[in-house]
Each structure stands twice: as C-alpha cells, then as structure tokens.
C-alpha cells in the first residue's frame, strides 16, 4: 500500500521533534504566552492548562487509532475508519488546507524574522520583494532538506528545535533573573473571568495545533504502534511546559510590549535579540519542513488510495520520499507569497489570514476525528469507558473552544472563516460525489497490512517483504 517509503527509519525522538517543530513552541512561548496576560488577565495559567489539557486528551484519542494501524493519511484515515468516507474526505480537505497554511506561515514568518533580525543587527528593514525572495529561498532550502530523505529531514527538525528551545530557555532565564517570578501573584485567580479564561484556552489550542502531524510518519517510524501515540502526547506536554513556564515568567512584564527585544527592550539595535530572532527563523523553517512532510504524505495517501492521480503516489528510489507529491504542492506553497509580492503586500499578510482560518478548520477536524474513536473501537469490539471518556471530552471541549475562537473572530469583524469552513465541507462532499460516480469510494481510508516477515504464520517459513 505505502511501498517505496523508508520504513522503520524514524526514531521516537525525531517523531517528537517533528510534531514539536509544527507546533513551533519557541515562537509561541515568546509571543502568545506574553499576550495571554493582556487577553485573559488573572488566570492566564489556567487557560494554558485547559488548552493544553484538551490537546492532550485529543492526542490520547488519536492514539487509539495510531496504536492499531499505520497509514500516512493521519487524521483523514482515522476519520474515514470511524465515520466513513464522507467524514474522511471532509477531514482530508481540512488537513490539506491546514498543512498548506502551516507551510506558508512557516516560510513567510521565517522571512519576517530574518528581516527583523537584520534590523536588530543594525541593518535596514528589507523591502517586500526581498522578503518574498527570502520566502522562495526558504522553500528551496526546505526542498533540499526534504529531498535528502526522511532520516535527514527529521534530524534537521530535531536539531533546529534543540537550538530554538535552548534559545527560548536562555531568554526566559534572563527575563526571570531581571524581573523575578512572583508565583503567588502569577497563580492567583482573584478577579479571573471564566469567559476570558476560555478565550485564553482557545488561543492556547490554536498554538498547539499540529501536534498530530507526526502520525503522517507512521509507516516510516520505528515501533509505530508505540512511538506515534507517545510522540503526539509528549509533544503536547513539552509545549504545555514551555507555555506554562513562559506565562509565569511573563507575569511581571505583562504590560510591556517587547516587540522582539527581550534582552534590550526599547532598543532598535541589539545583537543578542538578533540572534534570538534568527533562532526563531530557524524554527519556522523546521515548521515548514515538517508541515510539508505531513502535507506530502497526505497527498501520497490520496494517490495510493486511487482518489488522486497515481503519479502523485510515486516515491524516489534513492530518497524514498513521495517526491511527486512534494513537487506537486510546490506551486500552491509559493503562490501566496508571490501573489502578495505582485500586489505589493508583505508576504506574511496572506499567510497569516490563511493560518487563522486553518486553525479553526483544523480544530473542527480534531473534533470530528475524536468522535470517530467511538464507532471505530466499537466495531473492533474494543470499546471501553476510557475511549468513551476521551472521545466525549475531546468532542465537547473542541466544540466549546472552537466556538469561543469563532466568536473572537466575529467580534473582530472577520466572518470569512465561516465561509472557508463551509467551503471545506462542500469540497469534501463534492469529492465524495465525484468518487462515488467513479466507484472509487472503497479505497478511502486504507491502512498498511502487516508484512509476512512481521508475523508468525503456522506451517509457513518466515517470508520476505510480501504483504500478510
């Protein structure tokens, strides 16, 4: 089914790094954690716990699928297995848009951070064409890294995240040493408003979006039934720890607007802040690499299932990656920054809008997939109280936080997200109708069957690489 990929080659640490890279916590911890105090006020830490806690529940719910089969389609395959092809295709369309937005956002913000670093080093702010050129260069770097194969790209993500997280810890330690950490004040709930705490939790959830992306590497992971579910949960916990730490450290300086100057607030030129901005840029490149990896595996799954042209399911003989899917998505990845360049806009503007829509759409996809756990485990006769609790908490929690996030968008006059949400649902339904006419629905949501060499068949010597 998924022949041609580099099977059993990605270790647990690299899987965690893959999901952490897509979440990009170093950038979030230096921005969202600080702005959380302004949005929520007292109880910001509670928002972090609720948002991260819900994502952990969702990761555990998705683990019910990941511990039972491997596929490169991640949530698309999970939703199809539990709720059928229509739900699978709607979630598949949501993931396509979501991962594409994350790649664009990673590339655009990497270029923005390099521009800000140039200013911090004493240079001039790069013009929009230069920033757009940086986006194209960033895409080239991503392709080079990806083309070396999954072992190389996952190592790159691991190294980039190690640098970014170490930088984050240095920044937080510096801020804590300068301003102190007033834990009783930071943990006080006096004056906390439930509505604001929930709004903060929705903000946190939008930050942790992407934790499931390592599931796209299930076929390439070592011990996938063990490592993929654990990697999803661990990436959420790492992000939660960092966000909580940043929120507590940010308390005393919640009213300051740092604007990329953590070491020298208010200064234009600051060498150490320039280095921090470059580390953040590196983590955004890692985000683009890993989101592009997940996007290409999703397209690859569609092609192998026969619902997209078979050519997109081709893999490189040496690289063992879905190269055709990677190349096919390149124009879509480059279009937003190039369109922005043609219009004279900053390349990040369009990507940011797409990201805002994508987070709501991905949250909806998470809710649908959590719901799919119930019929899936019931069908296997492995339905337990734990799976019901996970699924119900995931569905209800996601519905509440998605609604809170939508309301925030509406309050800011942004109703486009509803249009995009409807467009994704319609795209999934239309795709289903087209496939039904071609009699191709049966191929939706397939997983990899075990190899004969992986099982002990009575009366038969252990075989080669044929499917069991």
């Amino acid at each position, binding site marked *: 089914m998924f022949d041609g990929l580099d099977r059993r080659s990605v270790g647990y640490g690299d899987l965690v790094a893959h999901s952490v890279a897509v979440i990009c916590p170093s950038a979030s911890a230096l921005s969202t954690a600080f702005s959380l105090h302004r949005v929520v006020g007292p109880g910001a830490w509670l928002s972090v716990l609720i948002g991260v806690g819900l994502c952990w529940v969702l990761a555990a719910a998705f683990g019910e699928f990941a511990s039972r089969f491997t596929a490169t389609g991640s949530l698309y395959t999970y939703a199809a297995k539990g709720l059928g092809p229509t739900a699978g295709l709607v979630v598949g369309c949501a993931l396509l848009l979501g991962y594409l937005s994350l790649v664009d956002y990673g590339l655009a913000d990497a270029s923005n951070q390099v521009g800000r670093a140039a200013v911090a080093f004493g240079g001039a702010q790069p013009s929009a064409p230069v920033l757009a050129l940086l986006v194209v260069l960033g895409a080239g770097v991503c392709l080079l890294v990806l083309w070396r194969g999954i072992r190389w790209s996952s190592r790159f993500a691991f190294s980039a995240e190690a640098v970014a997280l170490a930088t984050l810890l240095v920044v937080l330690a510096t801020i804590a040493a300068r301003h102190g950490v007033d834990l009783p004040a930071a943990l006080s709930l006096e004056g906390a408003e439930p509505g604001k705490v929930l709004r903060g939790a929705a903000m946190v959830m939008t930050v942790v979006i992407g934790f499931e992306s390592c599931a796209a590497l299930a076929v390439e992971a070592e011990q996938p039934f063990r490592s993929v579910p654990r990697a999803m949960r661990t990436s959420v916990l790492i992000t939660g720890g960092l966000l909580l730490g940043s929120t507590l450290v940010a308390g005393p300086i919640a009213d300051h607007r740092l604007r990329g100057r953590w070491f020298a607030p208010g200064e234009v030129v600051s060498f150490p802040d320039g280095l921090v901005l470059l580390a953040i840029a590196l983590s955004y490149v890692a985000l683009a690499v890993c989101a592009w990896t997940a996007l290409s595996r999703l397209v690859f799954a569609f092609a192998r299932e026969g619902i997209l042209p078979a050519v997109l399911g081709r893999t490189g003989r040496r690289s063992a990656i879905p190269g055709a899917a990677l190349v096919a998505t390149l124009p879509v990845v480059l279009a937003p920054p190039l369109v922005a360049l043609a219009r004279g806009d900053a390349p990040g503007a369009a990507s940011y809008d797409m990201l805002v829509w994508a987070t709501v759409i991905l949250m909806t996809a998470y809710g649908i997939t959590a719901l799919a756990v119930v019929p899936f485990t019931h069908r296997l006769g492995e339905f337990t109280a734990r799976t019901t609790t996970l699924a119900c908490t995931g569905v209800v929690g996601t519905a509440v936080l998605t609604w809170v996030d939508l309301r925030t968008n509406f309050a800011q006059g942004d109703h486009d997200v509803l249009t995009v949400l409807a467009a994704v649902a319609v795209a999934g339904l239309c795709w289903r109708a087209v496939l039904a006419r071609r009699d191709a629905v049966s191929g939706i949501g397939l997983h990899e069957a075990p190899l004969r060499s992986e099982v*002990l068949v009575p009366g038969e010597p252990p075989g080669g690489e044929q499917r069991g």
Partner: protein
Amino acid sequence: MADDAGFRARQPAAVDSAFAVLEAVAGHGPGITSKQLVDALPMSKATVYRIVKHLVEQEYLVRTPDLAGFMLGRRVLDLARGPVLPQTVESQSHLGAPERHS
C-alpha cells in the same frame, strides 16, 4: 531493550498474564479477536485490552488486516530462533561444558 512501563506493578502476575495471552493466540491461530480472548482467559476485559495493546506496541502480536483479530508477531519468532549457535556445537549435543570429576 523493551520499556518496562507496563509491568511496574505486580510484575510476576503481569508477565503471567502476557504469556497467557500469547499462548491463547498461539493456541487459537491467527485471527482470534479481543472478545474471544476475554472469553477464553480468566482476566477482566480491561486487563486483556491493556495487555493486548502493550503486546501489539511491542510487536509480539500483530493485528490481522481487518484490525479485529491478532496473530503472533515476529518478535515471538525471534524468541523462538534465539541466538545462532556456533557451528562447532552439534545440534544434538548438550549446551553445558562437561563437568570434571576428579
């Protein structure tokens, strides 16, 4: 080396239960389901599910293509194979060195 997280408490009982599940799968043959395991073994449903999940994660059990049943995995085969013996050791010979009696 396998992680022992699943065997922290009451280790001997957990090992016994894991072997009981493996023996049930071996005895029934490929395709035995969780429900059949629950019926066949003197364990609670939750215990059987937990052990089966752990054995699948460790690849001692493999799910059938329809995901509902189980087969023995390659790690059981690896156990059965054991290390390759030196060629000088005859298959019929004893493994221990002969004791000297003086």
